């Protein structure tokens, strides 16, 4: 059925003139950097945040250069790496690993319980709680956790919500009861859950190949958001719904009632009624392949892609990365008209492949495939 749907959609797309159907803004394609430079026109750049990036690697104490996630915990920074959980405090790194009780050395996800100060780490071998230096680990063998590969974790009140390779799980910290969510009790067609964002009202799951799943905490009901174009990689009607089924990350802002969603084929913004999608061809997104999205408010969000870190302020875009061509630090700004201009910078995130983002006041921390970056905000 899926295959048929895909073929039909492809045929339909081929038969139509995309350019004729889509609005002018969506027809803008390549960045207009060359136009601005050629005209030698002084473009008034939007005021977007600028950073001086300090990068951490194993050379200065990071447990491993492959950093899957980062978490800001006051003055502490937690780095989820391929070889241990790093904690940066007072200028020094401390590494937690399996000998300390960590469920697995490869740490994929992090969440802070702001009430207790406990840090929750999703790993390739289970879920760990780091509390006052003690690590308690929950696995599919020693607890009710559905699967040991924990891609995402989010803490809300007494509940720890977990995204795993075999469905989602929820641990009630009062009763120690686990609840499992999968194809048997939710509209989750695939069970490969990549991300979770929990708030008192709603919990959202990014399900790889199954769109976005929404759990209403008050009504105890489930809802599901899919790509109206099915599993194709084409976009028939751009803002009709979720941009793609292969979702990787969700960020729900309860105050604003806004959902930001990342997929490997573009990103989405949902306000409860309308969807707005972002693709490289019609936005400042440096790549459709997005690993992580972190919403700031209803209009602003940060995106971690395979081609750099991107910021969207509701109108304009900024991209921070080592140049894809030269590797030199690069920052570009794209205004509302699609004009792209470079900003002279001396530093950039450690790598283009961005996997995690967190904020420390006006600073930003970025997990990359080759190190952890601290973006120190520049006035």
């Amino acid at each position, binding site marked *: 059925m899926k295959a048929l749907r895909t073929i039909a959609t492809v045929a339909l797309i081929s038969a139509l003139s995309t350019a004729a159907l889509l609005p002018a803004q969506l027809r803008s394609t390549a960045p207009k950097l060359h136009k601005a430079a050629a005209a030698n026109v002084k473009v008034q750049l939007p005021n977007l945040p600028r950073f001086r990036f300090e990068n951490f690697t194993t050379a200065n104490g990071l447990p491993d250069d492959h950093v899957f996630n980062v978490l800001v915990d006051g003055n502490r920074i937690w780095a989820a790496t391929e070889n241990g959980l790093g904690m940066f405090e007072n200028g020094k790194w401390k590494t937690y690993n399996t000998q300390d009780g960590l469920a697995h050395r490869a740490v994929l996800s992090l969440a802070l319980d702001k*009430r*207790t*100060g*406990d840090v929750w780490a999703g790993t390739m071998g289970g879920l760990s*709680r780091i*509390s*006052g*230096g*003690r690590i*308690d680990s929950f696995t*599919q*063998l*020693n*607890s*009710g956790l*559905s699967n040991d590969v924990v891609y995402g974790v989010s803490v809300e009140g*007494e509940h720890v919500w977990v995204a795993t390779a*075999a469905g989602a799980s929820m641990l009630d*910290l*009062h*009763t*120690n*009861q*686990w*609840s*499992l969510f*999968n194809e*048997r*009790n939710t509209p989750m067609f695939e069970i490969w859950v990549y991300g979770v964002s929990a708030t008192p009202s709603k919990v959202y799951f990014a399900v790889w190949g199954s769109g976005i799943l929404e759990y209403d905490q008050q009504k105890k009901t489930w809802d599901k958001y899919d790509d109206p174009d099915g599993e194709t990689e084409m976009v028939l009607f751009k803002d009709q719904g979720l941009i793609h089924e292969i979702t990787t990350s969700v960020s729900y802002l309860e105050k604003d009632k806004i959902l930001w969603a990342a997929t490997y084929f573009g990103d989405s913004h949902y306000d409860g009624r309308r969807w707005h999608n972002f693709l490289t061809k019609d936005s400042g997104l440096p790549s459709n392949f997005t690993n992580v999205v972190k919403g700031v408010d209803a209009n602003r969000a940060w995106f971690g892609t395979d081609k750099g870190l991107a910021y969207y302020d509701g109108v304009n875009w900024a991209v921070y990365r080592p140049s894809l061509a030269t590797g030199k630090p690069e920052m570009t700004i794209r205004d509302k008209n699609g004009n792209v201009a470079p900003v002279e910078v001396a530093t950039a995130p450690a790598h283009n492949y961005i996997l995690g983002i967190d904020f420390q006041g006006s600073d930003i921390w970025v997990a990359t495939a080759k190190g952890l970056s601290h973006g120190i905000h520049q006035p």
Partner: protein
Amino acid sequence: MTAFCRFAVRIGSLAAGTAVACLLAAYNWPGRPAHASAASGLSGERLDYASPVEMLYSADGTRLFVLCQQSAEVRVLDASTFKETKRIEVGRVPRGFSLSPRGDRLYVANSWDDTISVIDTRALQVINTWPVQAEPSSIVEDREGKHLFVANRISNDVAILDPRTGVEEKRLAAGRGASYITPSPDGSKLYITHVYPNPTPHRTAPQSEITVVDTQRAVVIDRIALTSVAHGFHVSFSADGRLGVVAGLHPRNLVPLAHLDHAGAFTDTLTLFGKDLGAPVEIPLDELERYAVRPFGIAITPDKSRIFVTCGGSEEVTVIDVQRLLRYVHSHPGSHAQDLAASANYVINRVPVGHDPRGVLMSRDGTRLLIANRLDDTISVISVRTSKLISTIPLEGPKQLSVLREGEQTFYTARYSFQGQIGCANCHIDSTFDGLQWDLEPDGFGRDIVDNRPIEAIKDTEPFKWNGGNPDIPTECGPRTEKYFWRAENYDGLTLTDLAVYVRSLPPRPNRWRLPGGEMTTVQERGRVLFNRGVDKFHNPIPEANRCSYCHSGPKGTNQKPFDVGTKKSTDDSGLLDTPQLTNVAITGPYLHDGSANTLEQIWTIFNPEDKHGRTNDLTKDELNDLIEYLRTR
């Protein structure tokens, strides 16, 4: 009643088994006590003993509050004359209490009611009873009055309540069996101990901790490791805050315990921490052929010259010279738990007191020390200067000893064991279990490792021992104990009978997973169906003996028969094991006969590959979770 009659009553109680009225009456413990007549005290009936466990002075020092566990009340005494002026009824099995910073409220943690009694200290009456959860065992309000901290023994955490409303705001993960909270002298931190060891890999040394909480932020900021300590009790600080002391039990459960040798089963220790020490140091209280069994309460004199430690099993207070202690520790770096010659360097006296001394309270002028003797209903008064007993103050109540009381005294005392090293309560903390595995019996090194089974509601679950070798409690508690543990005098017939009556009377603590009225949640009901099923998911009949409900049948979850569930290890002589009861199975881990399963899940995810321990390998993870949620209601 003649001695013969007394003997006959006791033996009669045992011989008649479950039908004997006295035992049935006893089985009601620890509900609010029946006010039995004095004459009934020699049967199994429960008398209205006070059982003091903790004490506090009122803010102005004129009153002494005594927390009485068995009578479930706070008794108010004149602090000078010890004359009782008031009794304030609280909840079941109160375990800890404290004054608010202004002294206007007395908070009581009622461990079996899951409530906090709030007492107005001027009106001397309960003004609020707040529902909490999970066996609250102690309670402390921070100095600013922002938070109330409650140690929960069942959920292994510290609940933080709003002190105006009692509403829980959050919980902090503490050690397993979190029980006792002590503020630092400046009030900025709380130190929480726990009575059961934290989970560790199978057959490794037990680990405990002192959980350190920042009172302002109400978060855990540190965990002081108590390596090889299985059970932690009270903490005390010197007035300058530089020396912290915690009482603990250091078991030797990794080596064979065929007979008691010198400190063969436990070392009774203090762990010292704080700026006076640097790294924490564990020091023994025991000395060769003299043991300070089950240290519990601690007081340090205001001038930091002496430490006093109540030792429940040896029924005495151990007195330590602090300066000698610090000199010794500094000149002998490292911990000394195994060195029974060490204590001679700092233990300067041992003061005999009553049965099972628990709480300790320094008088406000620092001249006297009060000791709550739980199983005597007395308060011992000790001179701080001379370290001698000044007087013993009896609390009002029955003067005669009931069979149950004598049995309980026997259970808690160490006087029967070789050199007075241990009592039953060493391994059955507060008459429960210890979360440890032991290498018992003279069957060879590392043979037949056994997990210590809980003894709550043990009545009608015979036979005993994992191999089912003991047909009844008198056999379990008598010849076996005498032979393998005590190596000393045998119990006389009356003492053994008292002990057996007491053990048979132990009730289960309330089950926190069970809904009122016996109803079940949807999840629990699904699990119950799995527990009772006779057909697997492939529609194949499950043989009767391979159903959960066959072996774990009856009200206590045991058919009292042996069964091989496929868990025999190469070190086990037999795979045939007594079917354990399921009473409060949610909290009695680790599991299986040798404690190799740290969690209920592991019983089936790891140790049931051939479906010998019930047909479970057809279940999905969701269904296994359902089954476990049902088991938690047992």
